[in-house]
């Protein structure tokens, strides 16, 4: 049998399986409802079994699409638009999420994966709630499959079959971009699990002590993926877009940043509920909002509404579906929330305004304000345009002015919060503990004002706060170790290890905070102390910037698998290392693409972008020296390691005791 016909059939098999997956997901969503009304509790088990089937079917569909990409089957329209025969194999696979239809498919694929894992994970731990959780997930799967199969179907055929495909968007032909969307989606979709738990808790009146520990894990996992996705996106933008920055407050970036902000608030306030039995309703509210923002993020980016409100109207069916889906999810979830959120009144009281729980509330206040501001800045121009036709732009300068002060307050809260005990703080003790870190912070501010070039006020303040936070982390850790050494007479290394491993949740969190401090320093360094030059250089010319000297050696022509490039070569005279910025023109694409040349050390990046030929053998070259950019990526790695440590800890023992104690009287 010719390979073509096999490939043709595999696509149809995948297409068929996708329809089947939608139907099974419908069963999955209906099973507990039917079981409830028919009083046949065993029927509910269908949703558990269904989750495995849905994942298997969706996987067959996805593999069918990937097969079509790998074999360059251009009878599939989506393949023809997003791939061509010259595309390297690696990108052919990644092209699955290169466009709208495939991205949504990846989304639903990840959703079914999470659903199956929850089904497997919960079969022992929370079997009686599992069908409802999976049913909520099932409805989401149905909603997404409806959009995919009826309005943006990646399995659609094209006739006549083109000889070759168009191309994958060249911006996406980069390793950073290959992993960025799946990570982001693992984060977005990950928040659907806490969402399903929260809905189930409201519907079945599940006691909060019982589900909060479960939600915490899932929320942390989702948060970790989202953080990774955002950082990968920044990293990609940094070396790919060629303007020396990594974050532009672009609506697409904001779309991923909003769930991150609320998700961060969530992972903090979950702790309050876990430790102090407070904020139940608020946590459910946060879970619902975070997931809604994940949906909003997906749709904002995928509907094309961002580039122009009118792009939305190009395909009215799709736009209407997305709006309807969002409306249904929001009304149903918030409706259930309003009706049921008060099912538990047994909240503990706050003993003092100066306590950790109170600081967590302020953390939530700040994150909520941050998120709402970003939401407004992103959606307001769209709403204004749609309603009155007036066009305004809310760009990076605005967000920097508004958001940086909020972040500074958050760093302050972050550095003080872990020192303040639960319930009630001893003001005297707190004062002595804060003394040294405070002096270090002030010294840092003074040193910056004296020794470094004058910058915007946020620079010294941010560095002062970051060092204050760092000093707090160090003194708190060394205090714990000292205590352990005195009590147990352990050697230093052992004491360190035992302290960290003995309270993984806490020290995992502290490592994450450490990573945030490192990132903050990186942001200040690269944001405020950047040097840039835009010059015309002929071969042999030397440029001097921020103590670095670069010699332009000229350009050479290169040929990639599916692009032509001009590669500039510049030598860093001090180290002899070479940076090679490129300017690529992909086949079938209009706009030239830049590949920046970066020489990176821990303390600074020399970043070169080749702009355009400016007559003769001269080239316009943008040279940047960005201090401390590496800190940002390093901070990301530190955050992830802290997250792993935190996740490796066991669930709180007290939580398990209350589980049994609370379950008894209920029966």
């Amino acid at each position, binding site marked *: 049998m010719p390979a073509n016909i096999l490939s043709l059939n595999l696509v149809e098999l995948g297409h068929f399986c996708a329809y089947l997956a939608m139907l099974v997901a419908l069963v999955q969503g209906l099973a507990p409802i039917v079981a409830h009304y028919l009083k046949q509790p065993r029927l509910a088990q269908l949703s558990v079994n269904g989750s495995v089937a849905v994942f298997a079917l969706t996987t067959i569909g996805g593999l069918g699409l990937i097969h079509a990409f790998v074999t360059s089957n251009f009878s599939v329209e989506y393949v023809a638009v997003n791939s061509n025969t010259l595309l390297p194999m690696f990108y052919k696979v990644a092209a699955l999420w290169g466009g709208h239809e495939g991205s949504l498919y990846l989304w639903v694929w990840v959703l079914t994966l999470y659903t199956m894992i929850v089904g497997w994970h919960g079969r022992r731990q929370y079997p009686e709630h599992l069908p409802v959780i999976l049913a909520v997930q099932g409805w989401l799967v149905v909603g997404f499959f409806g959009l995919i199969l009826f309005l943006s179907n990646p399995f659609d055929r094209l006739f006549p079959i083109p000889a070759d495909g168009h191309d994958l968007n060249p911006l996406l032909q980069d390793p950073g971009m290959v992993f960025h969307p799946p990570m982001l989606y693992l984060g977005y979709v990950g928040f659907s699990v806490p969402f399903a738990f929260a809905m189930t808790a409201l519907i079945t009146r599940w006691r909060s002590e019982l589900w909060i520990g479960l939600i915490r894990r899932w929320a942390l996992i989702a948060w970790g993926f989202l953080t990774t996705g955002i950082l990968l996106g920044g990293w990609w933008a940094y070396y790919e*877009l*060629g*303007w020396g*920055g990594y974050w*532009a*407050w*672009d*609506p*697409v970036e904001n779309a991923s940043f909003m769930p991150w902000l609320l998700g961060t608030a969530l992972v903090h306030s979950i702790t309050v509920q876990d430790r102090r039995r*407070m904020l139940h309703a608020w946590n459910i509210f946060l879970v619902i909002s975070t997931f809604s923002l994940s949906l909003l993020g997906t749709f904002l980016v995928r509907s094309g509404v961002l*580039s122009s409100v009118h792009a939305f109207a190009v395909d009215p069916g799709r736009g209407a579906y997305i709006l309807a889906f969002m409306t249904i999810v929001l009304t149903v979830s918030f409706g259930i929330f309003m009706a049921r959120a008060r099912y538990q009144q047994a*909240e503990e*009281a*706050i*003993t*003092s*305004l100066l306590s950790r729980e*109170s600081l967590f*509330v*302020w953390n939530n*206040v700040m994150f*909520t*304000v941050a998120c*709402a*501001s970003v939401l*407004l*800045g992103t959606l*307001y*121009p769209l709403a*204004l345009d749609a309603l*009155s036709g*007036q*066009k*305004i*732009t*809310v*760009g*990076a*300068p*605005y967000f920097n*002015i*508004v958001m940086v002060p*909020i972040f500074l307050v958050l760093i302050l809260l972050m550095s003080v919060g872990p020192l303040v005990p639960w319930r*009630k703080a001893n003001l005297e003790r707190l004062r002595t503990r804060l003394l040294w870190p405070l002096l270090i912070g002030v010294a840092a501010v003074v040193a910056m004002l004296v020794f470094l070039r004058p910058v915007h006020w946020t620079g010294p303040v941010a560095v002062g706060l970051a060092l204050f936070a760092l000093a707090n982390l160090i003194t708190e850790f060394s205090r714990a170790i000292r205590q352990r050494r005195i009590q147990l007479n352990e050697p230093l290394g052992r004491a360190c290890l035992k302290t960290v491993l003995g309270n993984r949740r806490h020290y995992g969190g502290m490592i994450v905070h450490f990573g945030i401090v490192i990132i903050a320093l990186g942001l200040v360094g690269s944001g405020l102390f950047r040097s*840039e*030059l*835009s*010059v*015309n*250089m002929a071969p*042999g*010319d*030397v*440029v*001097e910037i921020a103590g670095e*000297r670069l010699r332009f050696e000229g350009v050479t022509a290169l040929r990639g698998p599916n692009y032509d490039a001009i590669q500039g070569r510049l030598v860093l*005279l001090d180290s002899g290392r070479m940076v090679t910025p490129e300017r690529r023109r992909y086949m079938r694409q209009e*706009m*030239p693409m*830049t590949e920046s040349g970066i020489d990176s050390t821990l303390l600074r990046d020399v970043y070169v972008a080749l702009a355009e030929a400016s007559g003769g053998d001269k080239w316009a070259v943008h040279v940047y020296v960005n201090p401390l950019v590496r800190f940002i990526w390093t901070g990301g790695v530190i955050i992830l390691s802290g997250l792993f440590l935190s996740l490796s800890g066991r669930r709180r023992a007290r939580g398990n005791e209350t589980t049994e104690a609370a379950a008894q009287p209920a029966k």
Partner: protein
Amino acid sequence: MIFMIFLPPMDTDKHRLPSREHAFSPFFNLRSSAFICGSIFLSIFFITVPAFAAPVTEDPLERQMLDIAKDLRCAVCQNQPISESNADLARDMRNIVREQIQAGKSREEIINYFVERYGDYVLLNPPTRGPGAVVWLAPLALLLVVGISGFVFLRHRLKPSLPPVPKLSSEDTARVRAARKQNRA
């Protein structure tokens, strides 16, 4: 100019006097030996001094242009300033900014020029009057509303910790002990 002496003589001579006979003149040998001596001198004492021309400097016009361009939106891009965009329109807009700077226009005049043509849309910072004011005031309003509700919540929940429990009298202690004993039995 004194560094002329360290340049290879062949080049300078050819440049100045291309005639063939001149190559054998004693002047050539003089220059040549001066070059060799000079090079040795240089390599001994100034080994780290690199032998190249002054670095290329940035055209101040370019910096002025970029400074204005970073606040203007490229109208066909997604929220990108014209200083960072590769689009043709952005290049044209950059050229206009350059021309206007050369014509002696001020920053405000140039920005106004673009606002007149493209509207407030072209400003990356929304204007503080009209519909843009909402965006500027909203974060403050949000901070107030959310902050006050956070504070109200905390006050509402606030219950000062219980006063220290008075010690049991000896009578009561005895009673408790008796009750416990009874319970055990």
